[in-house]
């Protein structure tokens, strides 16, 4: 299992489009994927889950992946956050 803490750096926060991008990317992998925000843990392969996270600009999230391709999953998702989902 890998855990990685990331910060939301895109201004608009976790709205529908980035949520779609994350789920689309995550479902390509076999590993389980969860996102944790303070006391809340959601399935990172569920768009409803990711959207109800309601993560805003500046908030911190923990990405948790568990499975054969966990490394690659975390790498791709973390890069998406860092690149602000192509916004701006």
């Amino acid at each position, binding site marked *: 299992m890998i855990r990685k803490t990331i910060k939301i750096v895109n201004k608009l*926060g976790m*709205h*529908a*489009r980035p*949520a*779609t991008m994350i*789920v*689309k990317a995550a479902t390509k992998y076999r590993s389980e994927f969860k996102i944790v925000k303070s006391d809340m843990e959601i*399935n990172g*392969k*569920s*768009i*409803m*889950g990711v*959207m*109800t996270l*309601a993560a*805003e*600009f500046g908030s911190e999230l923990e990405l948790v992946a568990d499975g054969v391709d966990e490394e690659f999953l975390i790498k791709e998702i973390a890069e998406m956050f860092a690149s602000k989902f192509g916004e701006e």
Partner: protein
Amino acid sequence: MKKIKGNSVSSGVAIGKAKIIKKHELYIERKKILKREVKLELSRFKEDVEFVVNELDKLIQDFTYSQENRDILESHKMILKDPHFNSRITELISKELHSLEHAISTYFTEAVDIFSNMNNSYLSHRVNDFEDIAYRLLSHIMDERKDILVGVDENSILLMENISPSFVTKVFDKNIQGLCTERGSRNSHSSIIARSMNLPMLVNTLGLLGNIKDGEDLIIDGNDGYVIISPTKKVLEKYQAIYKEEQNVQKELLKLIDVESITKDGKEIKLMSNIEIPQEIDQVIKYNSAGIGLFRTEFLFMDREDLPTEEEQYKIYKNIAEQCKPNSVIIRTIDVGGDKLSNILNITHEENPNLGYRGIRISLQNVPIFKQQIKAILRANIHGNIKIMFPMISGVDELLKVKEIIEICSKELINTGIAFNANMELGAMIEIPSAVITSDSIAEECDFLSIGTNDLIQYTLAVDRDNQSISEYYKPLHPAVIRSLKMTIDNAHKMGKKVAVCGEMASEKKYVKLLLALGVDELSVSPGRLLIIKKEIIDCDITEMKSKLDRILACKTSKEIDKLL
């Protein structure tokens, strides 16, 4: 009796009873089901989700949407496939015995609540996104069950605020008399489709919905652009006579679908269609048109913030080419005034846009964009018989430049190993007087000419065709126009090339025989005009008409020419 002015989308009269279609309102019955119904409800859930996913897939494939809109649709699709969504709905149905609609509405109410209660104002604002998704999803599912046209009488005229293109098709399929919308424009996709189906329709009928009740007698006068509410007996009788006559004419015309487009004296005239959007292809096929003589590609570039990619264009061209096979499709490269593209290209205001940055001039100054279009066309040509045509050619110079760019595109495609077919006829639009005068040289440099009469008249006579105060000067039969047509056709024939007319003159009954006498080989008209023009062709004796030609060409005024027709 009340009369309300509107903009006519297609000509023709419709008579019927008013039927107001309200903006789709979601009314969800919070219904419980019986235990034995659970299985059925769950299977309906599965089927409905599948149906909506397919619908969304189709919309996502529709490249007239911007990338942003497609992203939104993509997220809607993802919600339908969401594991959390699926397990919660299943739970609501099987444990709480909710009906499907009830379960879905409960689910989204819960989700929206979570968002609304967030203390961050920006994120609670996102709730709008969410409600929008819920609304779409539910209306999709409910639409599928209760078609809002069920029970609507054929003898109705539908009144609504606005209409979507797919709804126009439904209205047509149900044989409903006609349509009026309070908003909308003549050039919307819905209007284009109604026009190609000859479905009587008016748009922009301001104040209509407030002035009418369901079941009132109604007349659409698409010829003059009026809706008449509760007509007097006299007015009704007048329109009934017009309607009857139009129906008879239409019935006779429909018999011509399979009749060949050959004149009385045996000359075959290729009769093709002008289309603005891909959806019109259904009418092209229905009316048995000999292919597409003008496929305008402007729709690809309008109403969006980004440029269509080569791939998007390729798919659209390929699709049209395949559907038209073995007939040909003439694709015209982008032909808009710069002002309409200002959101994509950096364009500043022009003093004189008609004489400015438009047509091929935009393409030649934005070569990367032009190359994408040409490559897409070259690639699509594998799948059918495509010809390419260029607008606003003023002389051979532009044509030589264009040919060079096509050459470069072919080389680049070879280098990247992408399949294409460069065996493609090239044509020039003749719509500028300098192109008429040098039409011999232009014909030598390409494979066919196509005359755009609207612009040719405008430029030859120096008349802005949208300027009402000088409309009396816009004369299709002006001797200068007729001589220009003759000169172009003769020059092309000398070079062994064919000439088509794709402007409005080809769609007007009155001019068809004259055009044929002048030697035009092909006509291209909007799908809704195909049969009317075919009738003119069949009735035409070119030899006889030609005997009048010398006299027509000797006329000094348009009035004299008009008399001889």
